[in-house]
């Protein structure tokens, strides 16, 4: 089915997508092997760090253009999260004087009165709070974010009417709602809400399953398709190696019982993520799953195969945990190295949280995207 790609990207999160986009932009023939959504799809919606131009274009192409927010973004935990870029829905939720924090009847995890006080204190502004019903069809057990978002996809008008009334009563200058304004048609839903309310309506950041993260992931896929990047749904289960080069990989498709594919490429980007994405696996020993690169754990020293599990955690949970920073060590060009610092594969470039020293729990996206672009350019 293929006579070889210029670049095969393993992993379709933000780092992998950025690598594929960067290489496609240089006219290379690129494919992405993607097991499923990973940490990128669980992001809250606050982009920290640089937004490479090819990634920004792809996100806009996918219907989620990113802008610079005027301030820190409100998180449903009650704090303000600094962000360098965010989708318009999140940018409109920057707390300003007289904004109305609007909860929804039956939706847990968003206490409007408490959040208005916490966000207001953090931003140094006065916020109003209200709780409105999203129509008469509130399920007896309450809304889940996805059920509410899907209901708003179908018909945003009951919530739009309720928001309009709440704005009329409070005289609010903008409205901050939980991140539930639509699953597939969020731009249209938010436009309808804003039009009815007569003021900007923004969404707070999301908590898993985060709709802003899900939309970001969908937008990346759409952007990859537009850029002419082929996306293969599956996971790498085999590799063919000649000397210090990966010649081909065997991919087991995620859907159904389809036969394993053999994909050949001149170069590879390893961007499979850490524990959530499945890039680093702990099963008795710790290993890199796709290409079998040596794994380095900070204070154990050189890349290891057998390890003492206790060496990977600090008893003090407030300290950075070595386990979260375990990963593939690279040389200056981003190629995987072993314990002696020798390059393991000359045609593989590593990007994102699969790398050693990068914690999967760090906020960001930007750093991974930048690394992805660098890897894509080096490999392409």
């Amino acid at each position, binding site marked *: 089915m293929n006579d070889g790609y210029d670049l095969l990207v393993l992993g379709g999160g933000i780092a992998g997508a950025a690598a594929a986009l960067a290489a496609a932009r240089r006219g290379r023939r690129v494919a992405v092997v993607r*097991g*499923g959504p990973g*940490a990128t799809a669980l992001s809250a919606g606050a982009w920290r760090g640089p937004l490479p131009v090819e990634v920004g274009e792809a996100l806009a192409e996918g219907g989620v253009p990113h802008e610079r927010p005027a301030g820190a973004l409100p998180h449903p935990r009650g704090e303000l999260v600094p962000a360098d870029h965010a989708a318009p829905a999140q940018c409109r939720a920057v707390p300003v004087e007289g904004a109305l924090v609007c909860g929804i009847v039956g939706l847990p995890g968003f206490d409007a009165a408490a959040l208005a006080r916490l966000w207001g204190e953090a931003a140094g502004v006065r916020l109003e709070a209200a709780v409105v019903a999203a129509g008469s069809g509130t399920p007896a*057990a309450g809304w889940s974010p*996805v059920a509410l978002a*899907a209901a708003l*996809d179908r018909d945003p008008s009951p919530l739009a009417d309720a928001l309009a009334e709440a704005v009329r009563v409070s005289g609010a200058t903008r409205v901050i709602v939980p991140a539930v304004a639509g699953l597939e048609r969020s731009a249209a839903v938010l436009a309808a809400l804003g039009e009815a309310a007569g003021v900007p309506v923004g969404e707070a950041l999301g908590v*898993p399953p985060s709709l802003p993260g*899900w939309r970001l992931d969908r937008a990346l896929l759409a952007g990859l398709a537009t850029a002419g990047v082929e996306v293969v749904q599956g996971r790498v289960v085999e590799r063919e190696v000649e000397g210090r080069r990966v010649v081909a990989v065997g991919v087991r498709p995620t859907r159904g019982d389809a036969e394993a594919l053999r994909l050949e490429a001149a170069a590879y980007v390893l961007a499979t993520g850490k524990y*959530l994405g499945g890039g680093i696996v702990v099963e008795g020993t710790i290993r890199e799953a796709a290409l079998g690169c040596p794994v380095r754990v900070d204070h154990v020293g050189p890349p290891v195969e057998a390890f003492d599990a206790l060496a990977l955690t600090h008893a003090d949970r407030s300290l950075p945990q070595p386990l979260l920073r375990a990963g593939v060590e690279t040389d200056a060009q981003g190629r995987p190295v072993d314990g002696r610092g020798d390059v393991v594969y000359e045609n593989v470039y590593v990007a994102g949280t699969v790398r050693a020293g990068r914690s999967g729990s760090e906020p960001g996206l930007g750093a991974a995207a930048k690394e992805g672009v660098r890897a894509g350019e080096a490999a392409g």
Partner: protein
Amino acid sequence: MRGRAFAWANLGYRFALHLLRLPLRPFRRGRDEARFLGAVVREGYVPLEAGEREAFPSFMACIGCGLCTLACPSLREAPRDAWAEAWTFVVGPSRSIDRPALLDAPACARCGDCALACPMEVPIPRLTALVERLASAAK
């Protein structure tokens, strides 16, 4: 001290009883099993089939991220009370859930979109089949 002496004596008595009963075991097997199953079924538990037992460890990989609920077309079309916290459905077999209520939930079409969205590769359609079977068996 007296409590401990009693505990040891009791343990010895039970063990002696156990040794005496050992030769009878082949004859009692069916009866004990029936008694056990009777008690368990009364509690609303349903024995797992061999294939389900085999697949169980893969079900337990669920980390409760909820991505499957975002991917499921059935959930979008017919959000119902039973699905309000749909990811409990995935970890459901290990928890106390209202199984008959799940029967009112929209039928799973086995499209597999949920499994594609699962970062931990939980075979969710197999799990849905299991929960549907348990729900109808407990009805």
